């Protein structure tokens, strides 16, 4: 276990930004989570990474934690606002299904980053989450620590238009907020990102990321080529739709040959999802550029949602076939083994 270091008004020894990430990752790794790495396609939130969007679908239990840099072009402030970023970092934890003590586990994780709850005020305030572009929603709380929202805690109910079973708990830690809380700084850019253990030399968040914020604000608000962004959007959308059509053509093929099964299980739904994420990102850029008119806006959101819903449906179908294949091979096992229940099929197993 990690030391339960208590907070003190003078926070010279508080965790650096990278230590904060490391501690949270170790905490969740010790509780059985797969530590994934950030997804390498632009996303607006950790929820959109396939490790959440696709993994929460279907019956397979899963536990994962990862940091996800999240791009929201319209939130950029040219690096001038101490509290707003174009790209912020979330530490995302998915627990599928959520264990009974999920809240307690979460509170324990705060201890792991040096927050002694006996000295603080913690509240779970209602906050329900909804993502229209993903046709996803859930209920939960914003977790308030001394008046600061540090985490979004959500029980997913639906994703990609699919009712979830089992459900997942999603914990989204706002790393910049927690970092500035722990270090007691008023500007995100003043957060100490790394401290050289030998020299004590500090590298600040601003040193690492300020240029990012400045340049991308200029790009997103002023220079992104609107026509080309529309073209990118349309190219990705067309290709994504085509892939989905191809998949549904294969999946309707009822001939029980192994070839079809293999083709189906290898079909790049993941590729289609990347294209959907690209669409979402181009939509965000166009939105930041003020290039989407009133009448278009609702329609464009609906187009992205249609892709997300199609992908979710196809993914569930693909997974079902793989599970069925798993069952089939289980049947081929010796008779004495047959009584063993395949643990991946039990939705309440954790």
């Amino acid at each position: 276990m990690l030391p339960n270091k208590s907070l003190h008004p003078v926070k010279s020894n508080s965790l650096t930004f990278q230590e904060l990430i490391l501690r949270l990752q170790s905490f969740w790794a010790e509780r059985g989570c797969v530590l994934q790495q950030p997804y390498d396609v632009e996303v607006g939130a950790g929820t959109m990474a396939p490790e959440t969007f696709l993994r929460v679908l279907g019956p397979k239990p899963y536990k994962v934690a990862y940091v996800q840099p999240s791009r929201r072009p319209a939130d950029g402030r040219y690096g001038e606002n101490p509290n707003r970023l174009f790209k912020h970092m979330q530490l995302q934890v998915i627990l599928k299904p959520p264990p009974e003590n999920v809240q307690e586990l979460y509170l324990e994780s705060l201890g792991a980053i040096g927050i002694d709850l006996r000295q603080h005020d913690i509240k779970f305030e209602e906050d329900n989450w909804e993502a229209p572009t993903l046709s996803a929603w859930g209920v939960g709380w914003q977790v308030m620590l001394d008046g600061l929202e540090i985490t979004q805690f959500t029980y997913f109910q639906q994703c990609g238009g699919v009712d979830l079973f089992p459900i997942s708990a999603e914990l989204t830690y706002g790393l910049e907020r927690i970092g500035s809380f722990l270090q007691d700084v008023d500007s995100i850019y003043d957060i100490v990102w790394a401290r050289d253990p030998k020299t004590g030399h500090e590298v600040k968040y601003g040193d690492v990321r300020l240029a990012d914020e400045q340049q991308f604000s200029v790009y997103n608000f002023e220079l992104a080529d609107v026509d080309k962004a529309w073209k990118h959007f349309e190219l990705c959308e067309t290709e994504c739709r085509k892939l989905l059509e191809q998949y549904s053509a294969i999946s309707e093929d009822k001939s029980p040959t192994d070839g079809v099964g293999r083709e189906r299980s290898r079909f790049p739904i993941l590729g289609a999802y990347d294209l959907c994420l690209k669409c979402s990102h181009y939509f965000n850029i166009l939105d930041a550029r003020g290039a989407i008119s009133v009448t278009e806006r609702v329609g464009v959101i609906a187009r992205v949602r249609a892709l997300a819903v199609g992908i979710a449906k196809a993914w569930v179908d693909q997974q079902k076939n793989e599970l069925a294949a798993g069952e089939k091979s289980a049947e081929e096992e010796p008779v004495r083994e047959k009584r063993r229940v395949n643990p991946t099929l039990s939705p309440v197993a954790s």
Partner: protein
Amino acid sequence: MPDFLLEIGCEEIPARMIDAASSELRERVSALLGKERLAAKDIESFDSPRRLAVLASGIPAAQPDATEQITGPSVNVAYKDGQPTPAAHAFARKSGVDVALLAKISTPKGEYLSATVTKKGRSASEIIAEHLPKEISSIYWPKNMYWRKTNERFVRPIRWLVAMLDAETIPLEFDGVRAANISRGHRILSDGDVTIPQAGLAYIDALRNARVLGRPERERQIRKYLDVAARAISGARWREDKSLLDSVINLTEFPSVILGNFDPQFLSLPEEVLVTVMRDHQKYFALEDSSHKLLPCFLAVLNTDGDPDGLIRHGNERVLRARFNDARFFWETDQKKSLLERLDLLRHVTFQKDLGSYYDKTRRVQRLCSWLSEIIKQSGMAIRAGVIHKAACLAKTDLTTELVKEFTELQGIIGGLYARVQELDPSLPESTRLAIADTVYGHYKPESTDDEVPQSIEGAVLSIGDKADTIAGMFALGLAPSGSKDPFALRRQANGIVRTIAEKKLPLRLSELMRDARAGYQGSDAEKKFVNADKFRESLALFLRERIEFYLRDVLGYSYDVVKAVLAAGSDDVADVLSRAAAVKQVMYMPEFQAIGAAGKRMRNILRQAQEKNIVPATQFEYLADAADEEKALMAYLERSAGKIEEHRTKKEYLDALLLLSTIREPLDRFFEKVMVMVENERIRANRLALLRTLLREFSTIADFSEIVTEGKN
């Protein structure tokens, strides 16, 4: 008689839902116990963010035994030669009574065997375990979830249950959780599990030891600590705020309060912005000095027992500083583009998907308000149409500002504040600019029944025009509110229109207002989706009538029958409805009007019957030579008074009109006493019917007195 305790232990229940759910649970338990003949002496609820509990004291340990008379075979079949037959034996076995002791009863069908059977009452524990789950699962939640099985729904996952009769655990199970005698205390201030020794007060004591207080105690504690904290600054008072208080009561299990400060230089930001940040975003109470001026401090309610090292205060101050910095940043950024320059940006802000952008709305509301100003001006009221026109142009531009995007609840207010500090048009005198700013500032008012209507007549007109445009557009699309579905808050907006017209005594007719508002959409794309004008008019008339009814009854406190009587004589002119209602209320208890009401009913019946028989009244009553004396007297009365009544009425002197009308009672009573209307003579009958029709019309122009309930009033 044992005490019963139920506690549903749950992950944090949304604060806004706790009160209703808690009393619903108590009602449900009470109804269940009553129905199962286990009624409690007393039943109370206990709740906190993590639990809903019910304490029922003194319930029977078991249902009382019930005796029941059951009927067996007929005596003819049951005995043969005085000896019981197999049928009699079978019945005796079934009812558990010795065959010799079976009784006989006579029925209309003959004599039958009968037995008195005692049904053993079941134990309370058994009944509760069996029936309570259904009650728990039936609690209404505005939004619920599933976590274990898709058909098990509750507001948040249930983590523990306590169900006890005195010290005994009831074998209750719900959503996979088995009841025990273990509750849980405060998340941070207790060790977690709390053993409940016994149902009843012991439960409350055990929780108090584990730092969980019931709602009344939490409220007392919060109020006390708010007072104590405010006293640290001389002359300071915390601003009472009911909904904020309700919310923090239900966000805490063991509350305390801290006093925090913020940099006084933030006081240069508008108070509206500061208070909104504190109240809506941080759930802090604002502090003011003795002259109600905002102080650079706040009070935060904590869910823990104190802050000895000031860490929590420090954290909250940091958050508030960031929020205020944001607000100041937004304020300054917003000034880079004036409201006037923002008008064009409204083209990109959707008002409603079919009704176009806020730019379209702005243009429509401007036109509608010009028209309304003209009507008001013609009635002789002073109104600055130019101010309204400019204000309508700017009213929605604040939707494009950063500050409103951040604090949507401040829409309108921010626009007004910006209009106050910006140079709108150098040619405008200062006073006009401020009037425009005020008009924009208050145009969303009244936002609730407690909120005030806009102060100025210009603000009132813009408020009405803006709301009428929304209501007309939505009704034209066929999107009237139904049941609990009213996403655009059309009811609230219509209530606002009614109240504003009433309080400002504006000469606006609702049907014309809506017709003109709909006309604003002429030529737009939306129009293609509109319902036809008749359907529009009818659905709106019904909707608006309900809103006036609400205003008269729920806001002004008029009785149901006065409201019905007055609205029966028209509901289009709100100011007029009010004058009539006030007059009717004054005279309704006079015996004359009760008589007139009865006579009105009678006339209506006679006329209806005549119509059913296809008997047509004369076009106009006249003095027939063979008319009865009482008939002539009534006609003479009408000729004498009708003109004067009419005169009062056109001058809206309704009380005078009604008092004059009341003198008709005598000739009217005598007429009905002596004269028969439906006589054989067609000519006389038609003439009398014509007289009745005229009278009825005369009576009903101010109110339909036949609606007045006379029973029990004198």
